[in-house]
């Protein structure tokens, strides 16, 4: 047993808190930068000042959000080292260069150009400024690309092998890491979810202006851009859903089975459990309402492949643990100096399962001597808790489809030019503003909680990934994060609400609702 369970639990709690908190700001940044770039493109093409005002006003809100993204992002970079030191040693060879690439290609790009975006209006030509805005948008999405390649590798670690001399995973193929199918799917799914967040934000706030009959021309244009971009994005999120990546990688299969609360293997064509009450103790799902064929289509994009259930996967994992025990034993022999061909051969045969052997470290340091009871315990650990995954996944999907409806209607009514007569739709858009955040946070939870008990699927268990810390140290840091993050969130929301209420009048151009030059007749000019 390497470290106290409390340290592991608190480290996970802290990581979850800080990552979920960071993810309140990231999706909005991803989406708003693209919407700003689109609005500014329209401005440069048409030369109409209202589009410039739109870029500046939504840009102000973007700025308030961006500051928090920067603040909370730094935490995550520090945290791998501070709290997950053994993880950093064990997979730094793969994970580190991905983070460094993010620094070189993305952070510099977005952070250098964000200053010009705000302060460069009078110093740059129209086209130059537009270029800066596009580079800013490109930078934010590139950042998502690298971090999701890193995360995709945690879900499905390809292109790397364990080196017994350095006691860690080492990269053997960068191409495999970069083109990891799980990473690519995750990237598309997550950035598109970000674009949805930005769109919902603009759509909802614009609807609020329209409902209050103010700044109509401004709000209507913002509304239509958000509805078009939002519809395209929400379709990408749903069609290119994350779950299509759940077939590659053993833990991904386990996650999929847990999301579906599918205890027994479903024969093809697998049916999908719409709702039910998962029961971890009895290992079945009560009151399940099933849709025939659907799971097979979602998971395998086919009607003739099985989708494995949790119990079958657990049996496979018990076998892998046994093989991992052999690998662990051979590793100790290799390290003690026995480098005979037989030892190497046996290690090579079993090393893919070394991580499964490490699962036993939670219960014993004598990994090679573990009895059947411990093996079954460890195998049981490979089944994540089903109910939280089952429900968060459904919340995410429900949020997604609700937004599909909102954007679909908004786009349709924009196209038929009656959107601002549909008060029900605008009200729904205002109340729908939290939906993308709910979807993003639950989606993060499904992806990360569903990977437990691993930090790196099948390679490194969570409980040996942590730093050698005391619970006091963890309570100190958690208290610090809770305090600073709460204060900052209150301030951020206060500013956000203040500027949303002020609306484009905050630009002091003299043309908008709270200003002397405001002409309600712009309503008729707006179209």
């Amino acid at each position, binding site marked *: 047993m390497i470290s106290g369970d409390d340290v592991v639990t608190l480290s996970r709690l802290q990581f979850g808190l800080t990552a979920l908190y960071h993810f309140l700001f990231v999706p909005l940044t991803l989406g708003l930068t693209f919407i700003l770039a689109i609005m500014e493109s329209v401005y440069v093409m048409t030369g109409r000042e209202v589009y410039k005002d739109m870029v500046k006003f939504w840009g102000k809100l973007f*700025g*308030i959000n961006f*500051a928090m993204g*920067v*603040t909370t992002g*730094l*935490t995550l*970079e*520090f945290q*791998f*080292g*501070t*709290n997950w*030191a*053994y993880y*950093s*040693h064990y997979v*730094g*060879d*793969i994970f*580190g*260069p991905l*983070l*460094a690439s*993010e*620094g*070189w*290609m993305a*952070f*510099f790009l977005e*952070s*250098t150009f964000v*200053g*010009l975006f705000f*302060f*460069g209006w009078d*110093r*740059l030509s129209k086209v130059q400024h537009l270029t800066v805005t596009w580079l800013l948008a490109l930078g934010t999405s590139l950042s998502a690309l690298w971090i999701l390649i890193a995360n995709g590798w945690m879900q499905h670690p390809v292109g790397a092998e364990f080196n017994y*001399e*350095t*006691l*860690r995973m*080492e*990269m*053997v193929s*960068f191409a495999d890491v970069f083109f990891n199918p799980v990473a690519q799917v995750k990237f598309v799914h997550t950035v598109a979810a970000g674009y949805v967040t930005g769109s919902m934000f603009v759509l909802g706030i614009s609807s609020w202006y329209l409902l209050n009959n103010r700044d109509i021309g401004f709000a209507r244009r913002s509304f239509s851009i958000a509805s078009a971009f939002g519809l395209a994005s929400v379709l990408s999120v749903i069609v290119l859903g994350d779950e299509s990546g759940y077939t590659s990688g053993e833990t991904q299969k386990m996650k999929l089975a847990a999301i579906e609360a599918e205890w027994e293997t479903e024969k093809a064509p697998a049916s999908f459990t719409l709702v039910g009450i998962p029961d971890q103790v009895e290992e079945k799902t009560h009151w399940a309402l099933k849709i025939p064929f659907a799971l097979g289509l979602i998971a395998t994009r086919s009607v003739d492949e099985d989708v494995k259930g949790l119990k079958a996967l657990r049996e496979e994992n018990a076998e892998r643990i046994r093989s991992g025990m052999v690998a662990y034993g051979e590793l100790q022999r290799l390290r003690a100096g026995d480098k005979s061909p037989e030892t190497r051969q046996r290690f090579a045969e079993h090393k893919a399962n070394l991580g499964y052997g490490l699962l036993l470290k939670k219960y014993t340091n004598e990994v090679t001597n573990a009895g059947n009871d411990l093996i079954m315990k460890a195998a049981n650990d490979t089944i994540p808790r089903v109910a939280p995954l089952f429900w968060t996944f459904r919340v995410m999907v429900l949020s997604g489809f609700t937004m599909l409806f909102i954007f679909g209607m908004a786009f349709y009514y924009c196209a038929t030019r009656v959107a601002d007569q549909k008060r029900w739709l605008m009200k729904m858009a205002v109340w729908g503003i939290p939906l993308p955040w709910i979807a993003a946070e639950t989606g993060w939870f499904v992806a990360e909680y569903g990977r437990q008990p691993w930090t790196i699927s099948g390679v490194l268990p969570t409980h040996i990934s942590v*730093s*050698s*810390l005391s619970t006091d*140290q963890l309570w*100190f*840091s958690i208290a*610090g994060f809770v305090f*600073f993050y709460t204060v*900052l969130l209150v*301030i951020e929301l206060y500013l956000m609400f*203040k500027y949303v209420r002020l609306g484009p009048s*905050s*630009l*002091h151009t003299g043309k908008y609702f709270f200003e002397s030059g405001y002409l309600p007749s712009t309503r008729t000019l707006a179209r």
Partner: protein
Amino acid sequence: MFDYETIRIIWWAFIGLVAIGFAITEGFDFGIGALLPFLGRTDTERRVIINTVGATWEGNQVWLVLLGGAIFAVWPPVYATLFSGLYAAMLLVLFALFFRPAGFDYRSKIENPAWRNAWDWALFIGGAVPPILFGVLVGNLIVGIPFHLDHDLRSFYTGSFFGLLNPFALLCGVIGLLFTLFHGAIYMKWRTEGVIHERASKAVAVFGPLLLVLLVLATAWVIFGIGRPEITAMPSTDAPSNPLNKSVLAVGGGWLTHFINHPWMLSAPALAVGGLVVAWLLAKQTPSAGAFVASSIGVSGLLLTVGFGLFPFLLISSTEPNSSLTLWDATSSHMTLALAFWITVVFLPIVLLYTRWVYKVMWGSVTEAKVLQDTHTLY
């Protein structure tokens, strides 16, 4: 293309380069934050000071992010040991840094004097605390850190937070702060006119000699008061990274002997002292470009002195010398170093080019007239 030994040395140099980039760019940002409440007395004066870095501080901060990321990529055990061992110190740096984005972006969004004053002090904390702690960190790199690696290469830190605050490290912390104040004041002077320019000039005149005196003191302390470990046996320089395969003697020939044995290394301290003295002398003149370049050279010399002095060590263990990490046994694999090398070779020039362009676009004196005119677009 390069063998393992060569690329290990190249990466040692690259990390040094990123650290220098961080010290130069964040150095003046931190200094300006720390000087803000003192050199700016009215709200307009403070806005002038903030706007000298308003458009560029975010890009500068990426040097810190990159430094962390590059160490993670290139020296994973160093990243793991340093960040987890110095847990409280790292978190204090982080918490202090929290004040900066919000301080810059939120301060001028509301026209309430109490609100703005509060954020000015937040920017002060965000500017003053990190350089002190980074100085303390460098001090501890020199005296060594109480840590060891177990059989599984898991790192254990056996000291306490207050153990980090030993007298020598605290002296280094003060030096860190003084450098940023000096460097920041030079930059501020460069970018302003009138009363703030005058005050910044005075600050440079005061901080320069203080910094030099403390540096001499620290140097004497290192030479006469601190031992330097020595490697007695190690595998070849292209062996797989495993820090436990070498033997280290806790106290070897000492720091001065190390430099005397490699006389070319003395160029680094010469560069440090020369740069800082020239910066101080040039600072009496306007424009300040010369002084800024000289103080940048000075801090580069300082970091090189520390790097050369430690070479080939990266982290010295004060409790189990054999666990010390060196650039021969604490790097990533050959493939990862090569990959990161090519990414750096391609992207470093691109980053420098567009950063230069952004500075060029935003260049010019920041004056009270300008910030008063642009109340809604400037900070």
